[in-house]
């Protein structure tokens, strides 16, 4: 199978763009490229990553200014066509601001930035981002954010729950969803969600930080492998039809 083309959007203030590039390119061996936020077209890419960081300094509100960058129009178009979009941390915040994902990310309940490894329960392994994960399995992935406290109105949340759009929840090392395991106060321990069509994922934890064996943890590779696997399936389906 040819290499997948990962396009990583660079906003002013993005600071996990290099990390996403390294994970997708150097570690996973795919074709990774940066896309400047002032560009109007994504170009020829298979997967869009909106990386972590502090786009526009997180001034005004996390992600609120970035969503107006010229490239976001094409990201919305790409997502609308069913393209694969992965928003990590600040990327998740930008996706909610852009209306590609429901809900919002509030200030952490502790009112403090928090950086540490957390455990994630894979609530739905039937998405293009989690196909290589065991259903109900547990991943260890780091978080690093000040605004990761997921909030949505009751109706939205019920819809997310019913449709299996909650992909990851913060959990104990053994996989229990507990208050102690919730690092930021998110409703229902929500750590990551997909949109209705299942092609846009937003997650607060950083899978790109858990890919390189030298750093002692490769659980994040599961997400990349899942995405890569989904293209193999698409290709097979395409060839069969």
């Amino acid at each position: 199978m040819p290499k997948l083309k990962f396009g990583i959007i660079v906003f002013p203030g993005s600071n996990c763009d290099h990390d996403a590039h390294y994970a997708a390119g150097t570690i996973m061996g795919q074709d990774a490229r940066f896309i400047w936020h002032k560009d109007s077209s994504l170009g020829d890419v298979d997967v869009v990553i909106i990386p972590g960081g502090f786009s526009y300094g997180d001034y005004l509100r996390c992600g609120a200014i970035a969503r107006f960058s010229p490239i976001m129009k094409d990201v919305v178009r790409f997502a609308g066509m069913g393209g694969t979009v992965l928003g990590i941390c600040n990327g998740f915040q930008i996706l909610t601001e852009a209306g590609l994902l429901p809900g919002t990310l509030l200030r952490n309940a502790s009112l403090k930035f928090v950086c540490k490894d957390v455990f994630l329960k894979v609530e739905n392994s039937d998405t293009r981002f989690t196909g290589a994960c065991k259903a109900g399995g547990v991943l260890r992935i780091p978080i690093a954010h000040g605004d990761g406290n997921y909030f949505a109105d009751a109706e939205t949340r019920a819809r997310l729950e019913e449709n299996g759009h909650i992909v990851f929840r913060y959990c104990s090392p053994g996989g229990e969803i507990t208050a102690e395991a919730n690092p930021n106060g998110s409703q229902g321990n929500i750590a990551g969600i997909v949109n209705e069509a299942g092609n846009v994922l937003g997650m607060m934890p950083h899978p790109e930080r858990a890919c390189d064996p030298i750093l002692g943890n490769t659980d994040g590779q599961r997400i990349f492998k899942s995405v890569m696997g989904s293209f193999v399936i698409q290709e097979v389906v395409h060839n069969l039809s």
Partner: protein
Amino acid sequence: MKSSIEIVEPAVNLQLALEHGLTEEEYEKILDILGRVPTYTELGIYSVMWSEHCSYKNSIAVLKTLPRIGGKLLVEAGEENAGLVDIGDNLAVAFKIESHNHPSAVEPYQGAATGVGGIMRDVFTMGARPVACLNSLRFGDISDARVQYLFKNVVRGIGDYGNSFGVPTVGGEVYFERCYRDNPLVNAMAVGVVKHGEVARAVAAGVGNPVLIVGSATGRDGIHGATFASEEISNRSEAKRPSVQVGDPFTEKLLLEATLEAIKTGYVVGIQDMGAAGLTCSSAEMSARGTVGMDLHLDGIPIRELEMSSYEIMLSESQERMLVIAQHEHEQKVINIFKKWDLPAVVIGHVKDGPLVSVYHNGELKAEVPAPSLVLGEGAPVYIREEREPQYLKRIRSFNPGSLSAPKNYGKILRELLSRPNIGSKRWVYEQYDSMVRTNSVSVAGGDAAVIRIKGTRKAISLSTDCNSRYVYLNPRRGAQIAVAESARNVVCTGASPVGITNCLNFGNPYDPEVYWQFREAVAGIGDACRVLGTPVTGGNVSFYNESPEHAVFPTPVIGMVGLIEDAQLVMTIPFKRSGDVIILIGINKGEIGGSEYLMTRVGDVLGDAPELDLVREKAVDDLCLQLIRQGLIASAHDVSEGGIGVCLAECCISAENGTGAYINESVFSGMRKDFWLFGESQSMVVVSCRKSVAARIEEMAGRANVPLQILGRTTDDGLITIEGSLRESVDELTNAYEKAMTAVMGESASSGLFSSTNTT
């Protein structure tokens, strides 16, 4: 005068010069240099450039005694914005530590934030991409409400700046000691990596080359910040709050990316960060280094406040700005890069022959001064101050350790030591810092030193900051030697060879003969240790006037050490790895309790003498440890420091997080007082663990290296630390004490689940 509002400048005379912090002698010297009365702007320029902060006038003569060349050093200390050491693979590491004590004392959040910003700029102006940040922090007693306020906001300031900027904060130290109550110490260290061919220089060159100001607009913030840093903290300091700059990490991030991109074009002749004394210092230092002059036209500078005078523009310490010398006729390419990043870049003058920096504003020549007359090492004053051995030494040295009663319950002491904020877990602090961004953090937070791998190579660097200021207070020379030795030992324990240091020398008022004596002794001690350990001084920072109305802070020469690991796969860590391993002490335990945390818990004072230190023995211990690590003979290594072997063993078990315990034989005491053996802080000691099968070989290697060694016992799977005949404690309980050391006072850590249900619907 073209401006719509006429700015009335005060008449310059001796009185005004004195108000600017200059002495009468210095004012006379200015009259001599210029052959006339300086203009108001010129007076401002001299006053900041000859302030302690910029001129090092009371320290430079002593600093010159340090070993500042050799080893892997690529530039001599003080030559560039930061130090530079070679790490092979055509790469070099740029690093430096700097203080932001005074701003942090009055405005802790911004003071600490801009401290981080300033030191980052020093590194990336060299063309190096910052890869790590460390902090060395000191506050008063943590139970004091004002101390908690300072501590909380300093940590938040460091976090908010570094996290947004996107450089991991990977290590450092936090101490609490009464003497820092009014005058906390906030020292930040930045480390970057640069390719040999892409190192940028802080030099102006090429007559006719354009001079550009890039980055943020210039405002009135921070005017006379350098002068403020050169006086004691007092009840008037609160009024200096406007001297504290305001940081903008977002703009700094843009400046970083734009600067590195611009340097890569090859059209940047020279570049310097605008830190203390802003445009004045950068233009003067760059001109002096290049033995050229500059014409500067202030009218083109983007300003953020109306009607700024030339005096204010020259002295502004607005953050996130750089002075750039571009190649003539290629400046547009440089400007375009900054434009891409939405940053102003404006030509404000050009390089010219001769030594004069000429400043024009509103069509008038506002200042014209010979650059060399302003800078340290040339025209700036150099003083050697009067010194006297401090009175207090007699009192503290008369302490007799034997007078201390023997304790009854050793386990209780161990628990108490682990629950002291100086020893216990710093999780409350480091979880607020992004320690992982850039995905190079092999081992950070809680190790002896932080390990950062270098992408594209097999290598890693190991970073540590260290200073036990109690030892320096008790014995400045030896205490400073210990600071260097311990920082070296820390990187050694991760498997790194020490390659160089940067230092941040925090002292009281140098005009106090006792403080000056401490300073000179401590610098001598750093020099002693660096020479034996082969770690040249690459540069650093001196911060005097760290005093409150009652007293000076303990002399605190913080050492920032960089070590090199050739193979990142061989990184060593603290935790015991499995039960049944042999626990070995490398080095010799003399049971010294002078200045120890144990003594503080017993008598509430810092007394005695600093522990002995034999630098040759230290080097032998370090070399042996490195051999053991590189040959794969040991499973863990942890340096013995505050709290002694007792605390060291506990930390090896606590960090294992799997119930691994330790059983120590009673024979280890060999007649020594048990509390002294357990909690004394003798130097040059490392606790390692290894498989039974290699213990004999390790003994043999130590014998050949002439390093003393003692078998302490073995690791266990019973979740207990047992010291035969003295104590038996559950590791879980010790962990509990250790983890609560800070949260008991500061509240739960950032990620505590206790907040989780606040907005669940």
